[in-house]
């Protein structure tokens, strides 16, 4: 595959790792947060943690849209799915997240609800056409990368006059989450982060410009990185250099895809369909203002919340669940009391263990480890 293998080249990796080892100062450590779940996955999947020197630590951020989905919103989706005549569709991992009582949408499916996995929002339009007697509700999640496909589906449904398609919108915004992480000044919640690895494909949509005010306001370097392991390593090198120089700048490693202005056509489509919610609850981060999107009144015929007036009370995570601290980078998965014992991908207690980009699922699935009673390899 073009533009993929070249960015996984072993020799280049070894050269980069060597440069990183030479340039990272042994008298300090470097705490780098990768915001994006795709980067979390790449870091674990390619064993980059071990390959890098010990004084470079990755703090996993909350950029996993399944992981930050609050329990109450999943409860609402389960309620909607339980109504007769509803066909609820979503992307894979969303179906497995445990909500109240540890029940997920897959449990709803086992209980007789029509719940289906789709790979694209256009599949939902096909389902709506094929099932005229049902209301197809798309449980929409995702950051700015995933929102434009939902917008296109709604616009297309309007154009085609599809009467039985609705979207339950839980789309969220990256810059708002980044600011929330940096703003929190409660001492026990404060995470020392020396620099950020910025998301690849959120940036392809929003461009590089929205990060500039954040970099200025908080004086932290941010390097937008591509998805492949070599991209991540090059971004790490760029951050090390900035930190060593005492700089706090916005840099772009992923120039082959990300431009300063991003994709204005995609953003315009999103603006047509969606509007900002005043505030939205994020699992682990609490209420963040102007951080999520709702469907505009002009498209209320495609808004699931307009048709089904369900609301579910805010629910806290189970007492043992430490996802909130993990999503903020305060704790690592291995530091969670129930990681790998009570909480596993087969029986997830919290959302970080469900999505394959969740820090805990990635750590459990790819992290070289030992069972509790044997020696644990760091």
């Amino acid at each position, binding site marked *: *595959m*073009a*533009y*993929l293998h*070249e*960015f996984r*080249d072993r020799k*280049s990796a070894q*050269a*980069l790792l*060597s*440069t990183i080892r030479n340039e990272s100062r042994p008298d300090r450590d470097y705490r780098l947060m990768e*915001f*994006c*779940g*795709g*980067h979390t996955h790449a870091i674990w999947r390619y064993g980059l943690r071990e390959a890098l020197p010990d004084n470079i630590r990755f703090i996993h951020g909350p*950029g996993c*849209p399944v992981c930050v989905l609050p329990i109450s919103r999943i409860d609402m989706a389960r309620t909607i799915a339980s109504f007769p005549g509803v066909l609820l569709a979503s*992307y894979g991992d969303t179906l497995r997240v445990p909500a109240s009582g540890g029940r997920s949408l897959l449990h709803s499916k086992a209980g007789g609800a029509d719940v289906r996995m789709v*790979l*694209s*929002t*256009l*599949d939902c339009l096909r389902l709506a056409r094929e099932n005229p007697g049902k209301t197809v509700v798309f449980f929409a999640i*995702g*950051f700015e*990368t*995933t929102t*434009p*496909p939902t917008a*296109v589906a709604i616009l297309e449904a309007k154009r085609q006059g599809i009467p039985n398609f609705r979207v339950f919108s839980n789309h969220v915004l*990256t810059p708002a989450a980044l600011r929330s992480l940096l703003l929190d000044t409660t001492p026990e919640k404060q995470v020392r982060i020396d620099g950020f690895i910025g*998301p*690849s*494909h*959120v940036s*392809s*949509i929003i461009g590089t410009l929205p990060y500039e005010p954040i970099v200025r306001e908080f004086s932290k370097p941010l390097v937008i990185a*591509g*998805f492949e392991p*070599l*991209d991540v*390593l*090059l971004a790490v*090198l*760029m951050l090390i250099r900035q930190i060593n120089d005492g700089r706090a700048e916005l*840099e*772009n*490693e*992923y*120039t*082959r*895809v*990300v431009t300063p202005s*991003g*994709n204005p*056509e*995609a953003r315009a*489509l999103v603006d047509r369909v969606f509007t900002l919610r005043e505030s939205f609850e994020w699992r682990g981060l609490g209420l963040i203002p102007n951080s999520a999107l709702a469907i505009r009144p002009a498209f209320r015929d495609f808004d699931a919340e307009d048709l089904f007036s369900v609301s579910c009370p805010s629910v806290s995570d189970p007492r043992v669940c430490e996802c909130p601290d993990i999503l903020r980078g305060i704790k690592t998965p291995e530091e969670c009391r129930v990681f790998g014992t009570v909480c596993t991908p087969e029986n997830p207690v919290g959302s970080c263990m469900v999505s394959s980009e969740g820090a805990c699922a990635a750590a459990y699935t790819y992290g070289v480890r030992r069972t509790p009673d044997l020696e644990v390899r760091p």
Partner: protein
Amino acid sequence: MCLAIPVKVIRLKEGSMATVDAGGVQTDISVALVSDVTVGEYVIVHVGFALSRLDPDEAEKTLKILAQGGIDGLPA
């Protein structure tokens, strides 16, 4: 942030769709978000949609930097 990979556009179809090829695998995706894309260009695909183009010149520049272990020259 999400799983998105580079694919080559090999045919444009009506309804803002296109057939793309990724290492010998062909599938149809929506190009509604990159509507001026042409055959032969590379795009990044996520959940069945092209999100943006891939710039081959910039890719070359990055590969050159990677080839010498990032020692000199960094992407803009």
